[in-house]
């Protein structure tokens, strides 16, 4: 139950953050989507021993968090899913990979340690980048961007509807769970014999609702695609944002100036 309401508040909160009146929020969604994916790809493509390079990639989140006035605190919570996963995968590297790279005082740092740290930082950076996207861009706008990339309307409309109905169904699931808990106060989760009816009930209601929604959309003139209101085209500012970041990211990856740090 707490998970349900947690998810509910998370979605609500993200929606609120994403609709703030900030310059980053106003940058064209397509541009932000491209920059984000490009950034993640560059981060991931860095060698697993390139610790200094991966550190430099931290520049993107730093700039975006500070200039976009996105709350860093909120984003930390989102690391809770990924960090354990990445740790489990990375934690063994120091045991298998024991080549000493350099010494700091009396401690020798092995390549396994470096690759482990690199992997963890990669994990953090990629999550932060996705967070920056969603914290400054609503799902509607991302869907709009997807449409501009010629992703078929069926898929995009369906994603939009899924998103819209998540809050409704989370609330409904929450109410069912509450009703359940009110009459079974000493249970923690849903007991075995109620699995089917409880979820099934939610399912049937969802389907009825889906049909009603469809009818309701048809009743109001829906003919296959949503209208994306007041979406603008890319402006000079957007192109500048795009080009600037691509140049910087490529520079971190390839330029000799930064190679100095890598040697």
């Amino acid at each position, binding site marked *: 139950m707490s998970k349900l309401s947690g998810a509910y508040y998370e979605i609500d909160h993200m929606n609120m953050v994403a609709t703030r009146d900030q310059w980053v929020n106003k940058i064209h969604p397509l541009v932000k989507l491209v920059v984000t994916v490009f950034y993640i790809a560059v981060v991931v493509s860095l060698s697993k021993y390139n610790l*200094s390079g991966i550190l430099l990639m931290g520049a993107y989140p730093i700039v975006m968090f500070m200039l976009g006035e996105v709350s860093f605190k909120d984003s930390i919570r989102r690391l809770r899913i990924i960090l354990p996963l990445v740790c489990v995968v990375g934690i063994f590297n120091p045991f298998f990979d024991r080549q000493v790279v350099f010494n700091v005082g009396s401690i020798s740092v092995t390549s396994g340690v470096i690759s482990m740290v690199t992997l963890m930082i990669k994990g953090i950076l990629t999550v932060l980048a996705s967070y920056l996207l969603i914290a400054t861009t609503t799902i509607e706008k991302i869907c709009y961007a997807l449409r501009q990339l010629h992703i078929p309307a069926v898929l995009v409309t369906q994603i939009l509807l899924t998103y819209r109905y998540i809050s409704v169904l989370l609330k409904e699931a929450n109410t069912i769970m509450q009703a359940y808990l009110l009459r079974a106060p000493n249970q923690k989760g849903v007991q075995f014999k109620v*699995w089917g009816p409880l979820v099934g009930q939610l399912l049937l209601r969802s389907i009825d609702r889906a049909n009603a929604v469809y009818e309701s959309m048809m009743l109001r003139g829906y003919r296959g695609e949503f209208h994306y209101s007041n979406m603008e085209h890319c402006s000079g500012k957007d192109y500048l944002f795009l080009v600037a970041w691509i140049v910087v990211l490529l520079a971190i990856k390839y330029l000799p100036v930064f190679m100095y740090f890598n040697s």
Partner: protein
Amino acid sequence: MHMADALVAPAVAGTMYAASAIAAGYSIKKVHLEADPKKVPVMGVMGAFVFAAQMINFTIPGTGSSGHLCGGMLLTALLGPYAAFLTMIGVLLIQCLMFADGGLLALGCNVWNMAFYGCFLGYFLVWRPMMKKTTSRGKIIAASIIGSVVTLQLGAFSVSIETLFSGITDLPFSVFAGTMQPIHLAIGLVEGLITAAVLVFVYEARPEMLYRANVAGKREKFSFKKTLGVLAVVMLLIGGGLSLFASSHPDGLEWSIERITGSTELDAAKKSVYNTAESVQETTALLPDYQFKGSESGLGTSFSGIIGSCVVLVVCAGVCYIISTTRKKKSA
């Protein structure tokens, strides 16, 4: 179970994106929207349903722990493979954006691991053959459990393979897979049970909602407990064997890798995989420097380099701080 961005190399991500995109394109062609325009909103709401149902904790009898629903098998039984697959894409995309579960780059992998197997294999290998002649409670339960376990095993195996191909961890493949498979066996069983419970409810309440199920001759009695018992034994046998195979006979896995890559040694197999990956990357837009353990250029890191990077970051943060404070002063 969700792959994270940090665990996939761009080449692997790209490959899986391509594979998933093909499956999606094919599905869009096959859902026959013209015939049934209601499908889109139904898919949307069902996606949201899966999302909400995943947040419900199910207490597992006899243990203190709880399980969750995953959705692929459930959706495929209700919507058919194509619509279910498209629905799962939406769910996975939103999960990765809103909850950092998965990642944008790894989306292709996740769609493949969780949606493709669950929806397509779950339907064509399990649901359709089993429901072809008649549908009954027992068959639904069996199909749900077998479908969930099998597709989850495949998904988990894909995760191991993708991690291997990405060259992220030094953990031997056999160990990685050897832990993934048994864990997902348990998860699959629970998920199968939940899916079964829900589908049986639907079968009793509105049988016509099950996709392509033959519900004409419904009404036969049968014992839930008995079926469950038989199934449990079967699953334990299959699952136990599989896990044993995975964990105590790593050579077995090496053998299968060898068969796949046609190389005799796992390391060599790994290398050849990387080489292919590298050549794929060279032809794609992004040209990452892919370095493997032992290759000279790989250790492009020194203590001074790390310090230098930190200094740059601090300077960067400082500049941003100045910019944002002066901006605030101006607006104040």
